[in-house]
């Protein structure tokens, strides 16, 4: 297992290199540039800007320079947020997105798996339909609708929680966590229900019941283990996506996370910031899928990697 883990970490290096290379040239091939907003800049000013950021060099040379600098963990200055380096921007915002994101994933996993299990145990009953309906609302209603509704209800009408803003206190976290966790709750509960329905009918579960094991222990120890594989596979990439923030929810609740950079950096053609977010997200995806693979072999003893 340890050998497999180490080998996967080694494979991550060429994976990341491929991602960086494709992204680098894709970003440069897109029309527009980082100085498009400065209409009044004279050609000399533009030339100086390009020279200062090495944008006047041939592309392969810039690529080599970029690789060299990220090998020294230097991700360069942001083009749009002057005075900030890309690393500073990401490490200022990421703890906030991570904080909210991890809570949202935790809530989504707990609620989603419980709802899915209950629905599977009472397949095609009123409880099942109710749970699936709630789940459906979670995916069908987009966060730019749920978030203002939550603000309207819990902040403006009931005055229990602040409308928006961020001071690191728990009051400011609850609504965004709730809004962020709704779509994954829906996905997890539906995936769990589907595979639990199958798992509950499988031979090892029937054997456990036949041995006289109570329903609670059977579900927890036997059915859930086999029934969680699809949920787990979904959780890997979903976690990477959620802890890197959501531009919509960060805007609505004015949270200074990093979700907005993914969109802003792209529309500003902030080349270094785009590359920074690509690498950061890429590392998270690679790690998330690695942990999912490790968890597979823990949940299902039959899964083996050679």
């Amino acid at each position, binding site marked *: 297992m340890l050998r497999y883990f180490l080998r996967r970490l080694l494979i991550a290096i060429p994976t990341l290199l491929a991602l960086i290379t494709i992204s680098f040239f894709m970003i440069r091939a897109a029309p527009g540039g980082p100085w498009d907003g400065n209409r009044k800049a004279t050609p000399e000013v533009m030339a100086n800007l390009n020279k200062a950021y090495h944008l006047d060099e041939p592309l392969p040379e810039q690529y080599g320079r970029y690789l060299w600098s990220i090998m020294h963990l230097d991700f360069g200055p942001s083009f749009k947020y002057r005075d900030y380096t890309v690393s500073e921007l990401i490490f200022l915002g990421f703890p906030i997105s991570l904080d909210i994101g991890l809570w949202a994933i935790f809530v989504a996993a707990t609620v989603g798996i419980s709802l899915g299990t209950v629905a599977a145990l009472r397949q095609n009953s009123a409880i099942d339909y109710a749970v699936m309906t709630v789940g*459906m609302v979670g995916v069908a209603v987009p966060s730019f609708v749920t978030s203002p509704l939550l603000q309207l209800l819990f902040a403006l009408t009931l005055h229990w929680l602040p409308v928006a803003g961020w001071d690191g206190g728990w009051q400011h976290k609850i609504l965004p966590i709730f809004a962020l966790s709704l779509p994954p709750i829906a996905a997890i509960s539906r995936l769990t229900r589907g595979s639990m329905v199958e798992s509950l009918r499988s031979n090892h579960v029937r054997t456990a019941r036949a041995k006289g094991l109570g329903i609670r222990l059977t579900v927890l120890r036997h059915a859930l283990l086999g029934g969680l594989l699809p949920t787990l596979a979904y959780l890997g990439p979903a976690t990477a996506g959620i802890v890197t923030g959501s531009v919509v929810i960060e805007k609505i609740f004015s949270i200074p996370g990093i979700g907005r950079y993914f969109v802003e950096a792209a529309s500003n053609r902030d080349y270094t910031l785009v590359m920074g977010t690509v690498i950061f997200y890429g590392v998270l995806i690679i790690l998330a899928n690695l942990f999912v693979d490790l968890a597979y072999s823990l949940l299902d003893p039959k899964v083996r990697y050679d």
Partner: protein
Amino acid sequence: MTDTSLDTILGAELDSDEPGRSKIKDGLGRLRRNHMAVAGMVIVGLIVLACALGPYLVPFDPENQDYSAISTGPSFASGHLFGTDDLGRDVLIRVLLGGRTSLAIGILASIVAVVIGTSYGAIAGFAGGAVDQFMMRFVDVLYGLPFLFFVIMLTMVFGQGILSILIAIGSLIWLTVAVIVRGQTLSLKQKEFIEAARAGGMKPLSIVRRHIVPNTIGPVIVYASLLVPEVILGESFLSYLGLGVQEPASSWGTLIAAGAPAMEQEPYQLLFPGGALALTLFSLNFIADGLRDAFDPKDR
């Protein structure tokens, strides 16, 4: 199961020579007996029909602005059954025309994603070893690509419009399908019946097609029903950034996005497109669950 008649049993036996036919007939029979799934199919059928034919029956032009009726609520008297938006355009016709776009993108992209993701994940998981590593790390790379630039590249090649959105969203959403199917396959391929198929001299690709893929159908169908809303709402995000469906054309996603800010004053602008989407998704869900129950080989 109620029909364990001789026919079905023989049909299942004959399966190894005659791929599928009786399995499909069998599954369709079970699907027909699932009332919720049938109701879902009827409703989706009606919605598709309404979006296809309805625009010819509505006496308003989607681009025409009625300055005497700006932001008016639904009313029979004016003929604007769903009301008008803040430019005086009829909401009903925009919802119907938007449905064409949204249903086409949502259902097509999901089907493409499911077909590609299932085959890819099953092959990677079944092959294992270096092939699996290579294929799944490629998936990691695709996950990581800067999505908006990818969309920009596509619009440069295919022009702005539905085709670019379809390819952009489709090429992103198959990834999670592949991850899920591969996980299922890793567990399945150690099972006895796969061992038996292998011992019986079945070729790896036929094992994948005949034994692995049918057994992953459960989670795949469930996940596909989650993809449809993701695609339809994802399209509105791209449109908001100026990369998707552009005014005056509409889609459910863009109508919901336009209606959301006005939800306190003119809730109908959000409720009609939102309701259409919700109704479609509910029905698709029951169809998905029905399909899962009808075609899952483990449920015999």
